């Protein structure tokens, strides 16, 4: 698809708004429909679109596998970390009440961080799945 300017330019134009929309869904999730899972998929779709249009190599240049794996684990660690933090502060696992100065503030911080963790993991799992399936074909061609 390298020689198709419409696709390439459209992708470049769309890339930032897709991520912006992902962030909107992410942080709007506290108050309305949305949340980490949906936002993660939307953000991942931007990177996947880029890799589809510009090729897998370029996609991996933009978003290397090592960062992908790191962020994938980091999201889970963030989620669990919130739980551990609330245990350290003397309450049950994932009890947000103790995280802030008041109960409401605590709930707010808790859900924000947890959803962010979910978003990170989901988007990176999506990208990792795409990379895995996309590189499957090429590695199959040069089978040992």
């Amino acid at each position, binding site marked *: 698809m390298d020689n198709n300017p419409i696709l390439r330019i459209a992708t470049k134009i769309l890339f930032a708004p897709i991520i912006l929309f992902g962030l909107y869904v992410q942080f709007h999730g506290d108050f309305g429909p949305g949340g980490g899972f949906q936002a993660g998929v939307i953000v991942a779709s931007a990177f996947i679109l880029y890799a589809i249009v510009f090729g897998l190599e370029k996609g991996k240049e933009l978003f290397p596998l090592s960062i992908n*794996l*790191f962020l*994938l*684990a980091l999201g*889970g*660690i963030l989620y*669990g970390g919130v*739980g*551990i933090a609330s*245990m*350290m502060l*003397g*309450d*049950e*696992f*994932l*009890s*947000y*009440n103790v995280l802030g100065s008041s109960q409401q503030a605590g709930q707010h911080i808790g859900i924000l961080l947890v959803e962010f963790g979910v978003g990170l993991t989901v988007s990176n799992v999506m990208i990792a799945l795409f990379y895995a399936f996309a590189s499957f074909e090429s590695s199959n061609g040069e089978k040992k």
Partner: protein
Amino acid sequence: MTDIIIKNLPILVVLCPLMMSLFVVLIPNTFISWVVTLFTTLITFIFSLLLYQEVYQYSSISYALGNWIPPLGIEYVIDKVSIIPIIIITLISFLTTFFASKIMPAEINNSSISKVYSLWLLAIAGLIGLVTTGDAFNLFVFLEISSLASVALVAMGAQKDKQALVAAYNYLILGAVGATFYVIGVGLLYGITGTLNLADLSSRITEINDNKALVAGFGFMIVGIMVKAAVFPLHIWLPRAYAYAPSAVSVLLAATATKASLYILARILFSVFDISDTLITLTLTYVILPLSIIAMFAGTIMAIYEKDIKRLLAHSSIAQIGYITLAFAIGTKASVAAGFIHMFNHALIKGALFMAITSMSFYLNKRITINTLSGLGRAMPITFSCFVICSLSLAGVPLTAGFISKLYIIKASISAEGVWIALLILASSALSVIYLWKMIEAMWFHEGPKDLVIKENPTVYIALLMITFLNIYFGLDASIVVNSSFEAADQLLGVQK
């Protein structure tokens, strides 16, 4: 700090391997990732021992996740019943991780070892979570975590033998069918009762009489769990999965994976539903009892005709699962206790046998079939003696752990059902001697290749020695296992509503 740990023990046993699996995946060095995994399993084992102490102090611990009061929120319940599979899983996972240090790099590419250990911890976390949770849907989630992680682990065997991919695929599809059946059952029960908390569910079920959806829901749940537990006609995935998984993974799965599901089976049969209910009595006598008896013989006979040793042991596992479900099916306190005793002992026995075979294939660097066993007994005396001791334990010879469990199962079946079941158990044990002898004969009496020189490696056999020692120890002094199992059976069946 200790306060916090004690207070949060029920979640910590699950959280520790779950969180560490995320860290392990980021460690590039294979040795460090092994050390971290070993350390994690050790800590988890210590947590479970602490939990054991706590349970015997308070009899049952309830932990509300996120401080949402059950039955609204997710509840983790540790009682005298669930502590037994937790101890089994954490103990075996520690020993197998210790054992895996040299075995794993021999079969897996260096680049993917840390990922394998990450999956390894994830599978352990899933199994422990399965046992600790008191919420029907959360149970499903852990069921999926553990089985998806184990499917991926089995598939890693493809680096040595492409058959592993077929095995993993079978396991994936059948496992998914099982999990779907379970969740359909949960859905039906949720529709009738409006609750997902297992304790709450059981109290609401007693108020409902003669509801077809209830029966359907029960059926779906039981069949789903029976697939996961590899109860006889639903065991097809098991031999292949155990045979073609990377060796260390076979040890872990053979010793722990079905135990957690068997526990869930017992929990659904006796605790969620009521044993005095005709539905349960009918299921036990007309479904589970006959299937267990067939399993005892079918598993053993398939093992006798099997040439590949890992498959042979897997078939023998099916027969042993038959003993456990048979004990549950008889449904008296003594027999359920016997089931738990055998659950613990079988984990030790099968873990040890798989370890011994794995060490042999590690030294020889090829698959172990009945023909390659020739002369191995003399070439590797330590591994061979452990193998013989654990074989005796499997056959149920006195002074080994296997004897204790057979003894209690037979005692319980005689007092409940008369002599005929005891005779069947004895017959099946006698048959199992055939395949055990076949292996031992090949190892000791058959002439091996002349150039067969093997230097046994301490890092490989220490774990094997430890688990063999446990086999003998729990054969000589079984009081801890027997007492905890009877306490568990009391708690499981005792509170009749």
